[in-house]
């Protein structure tokens, strides 16, 4: 009988992104054409770990254990396939793989992982893949999210997400996409695409467009983590990358305060600012400083600046709305986005009053806004403030009609109830 030896009880957390790192590292060795084999191998390693660790405890270095098991599985599979075909050349290659695979035991660590992940991000955000699929593929192969987790995050059917990812991988193979960080000649446009995907990933997390949760923090944290990775690499760090990272950190610092304990939404004015994550704000400020190193001012810079005004004000009332109006104007000059224009009207209402803001809001003539629930929430608020409760209710009802997010629906219904009782 085996006596009970010390079992590793301190659970070294295995994060999703650890799995993503392993996918990157292994795909780098075996090539992007073998990405499915790599993912299958990691699934097998995970299910082995599940049983083994459950009975025996977690090994000292769980990641090394998983990668070893996955690696062995891939090599076995490659050898088996070669045997059936009988290609000498392939055998030689497999030995090379084996050699490289041993090599990673020693350099599996930081640098390899770091480079591997960045290369994988660029592959996932390759222009041959549609943007929606870029996000899903990035979450799957870099973030280590399972298909069900991605399906949950976007409230999509599992099968649909799986298909989307398969198609995206096929494109990678068809276009013979290399795992590499793009060279100087096209880094700028490729980086632009990557930043956009992270921006969309974060946004989807920040206000989940559908479902029962207001936010999907996982998506926000993953986008932030990846932005930080990009900001840390000499080729991908740029003032823009830093600005985006700063924006994410500022926004994410407020995540803990956006819901009350019973799950209702708390707007900026109602949030307990002591819950804001000071560490993230400080971190964001240093990225914001780094973003000012060039002469470029991007939209991400301006959005980060706007977010910084909010996280740095001691209270809602002491917010520097006047400066905010200025930054919004600058943002609108570069990109006349109706959403930025809408946000500006909120700042205007604090500087010039609700009436001026309402006039400005009514002058926004954009079809996109007619399907955008925050437009009607803002309109309702401003109408209420300017003494038109009945019209305010109509606007709020329109907002409810336009969103599928349950907490937001509840939040707006509550407003209607309050106004109705005051009439």
């Amino acid at each position, binding site marked *: *009988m085996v006596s009970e030896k010390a079992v590793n*009880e301190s659970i070294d957390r295995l994060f*999703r992104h650890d799995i993503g790192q392993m996918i990157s590292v292994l795909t780098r060795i075996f090539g992007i054409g073998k990405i499915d084999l790599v993912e299958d191998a990691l699934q097998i390693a995970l299910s082995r770990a599940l049983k083994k660790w459950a*009975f025996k*405890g977690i090994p000292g270095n769980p990641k090394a254990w998983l990668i070893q098991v996955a690696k062995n599985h891939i090599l076995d599979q490659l050898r088996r396939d070669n045997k059936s075909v009988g290609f000498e050349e392939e055998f030689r290659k497999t030995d090379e793989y084996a050699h490289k695979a041993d090599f990673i035991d020693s350099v599996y660590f930081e640098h390899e992982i770091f480079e591997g992940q960045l290369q994988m991000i660029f592959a996932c955000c390759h222009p041959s893949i549609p943007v929606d699929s870029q996000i899903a593929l990035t979450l799957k192969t870099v973030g280590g999210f399972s298909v069900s987790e991605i399906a949950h995050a976007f409230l999509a059917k599992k099968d649909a997400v799986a298909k989307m990812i398969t198609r995206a991988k096929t494109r990678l193979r068809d276009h013979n996409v290399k795992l590499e960080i793009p060279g100087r000649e096209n880094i700028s446009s490729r980086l632009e695409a990557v930043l956009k995907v992270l921006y969309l990933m974060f946004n989807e997390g920040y206000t989940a467009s559908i479902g029962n949760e207001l936010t999907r923090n996982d998506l926000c944290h993953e986008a932030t983590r990846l932005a930080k990775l990009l900001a840390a690499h000499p080729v991908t760090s740029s003032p823009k990358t830093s600005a985006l990272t700063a924006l994410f950190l500022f926004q994410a610092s407020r995540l803990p305060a956006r819901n009350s304990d019973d799950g209702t939404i708390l707007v900026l004015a109602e949030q307990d600012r002591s819950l804001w994550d000071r560490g993230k704000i400080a971190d964001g400020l240093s990225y914001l400083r780094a973003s000012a190193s060039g002469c470029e001012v991007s939209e991400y810079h301006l959005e980060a600046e706007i977010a910084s005004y909010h996280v740095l004000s001691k209270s809602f009332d002491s917010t520097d709305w006047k400066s905010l109006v200025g930054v919004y104007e600058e943002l609108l000059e570069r990109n006349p986005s109706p959403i930025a224009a809408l946000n500006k009207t909120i700042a205007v209402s604090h500087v010039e009053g609700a009436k001026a803001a309402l006039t400005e809001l009514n002058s926004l003539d954009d079809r996109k806004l007619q399907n955008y629930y925050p437009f009607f929430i803002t309109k309702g608020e401003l109408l209420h403030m300017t003494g038109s409760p009945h019209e305010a209710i109509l606007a709020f009802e329109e907002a409810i009609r336009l969103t599928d997010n349950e907490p937001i629906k509840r939040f707006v219904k509550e407003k209607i109830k309050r106004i109705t009782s005051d009439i």
Partner: protein
Amino acid sequence: MASFMFLLHDNTSMPEDLSAEDVQGVIEEYLAWRKEVANEGKLIGGEKLTDDGGRHLAMSDGGIRVTDGPYAEIKEALGGYFAIKAADYDEAIEIAKTCPHIKYGTKIEVRQIDEINLADM
């Protein structure tokens, strides 16, 4: 105090689409259970068996026949064991009921180790 084996039967098929979070969650449950039993001084040990189903030896036609397991049609195999101390079957069963394997495995077979003490002889 008697000793018992919990023979942990498992599904041999691999679950699909496992995430790191899933794995972490299940392992944490097992480890928490293990720790609790150990803290009560009732855990003797536990091991996982390999997934290959092992080798089966039997006498046949005057020789020893060795076969591989598991057979393709068998969906279940012995995946591992825990060894614990308990006063009697009743207590062993109570402990087994709290084991997460009840949820995640296919079944737990509880067997008492037949110990022959000098005092009994």
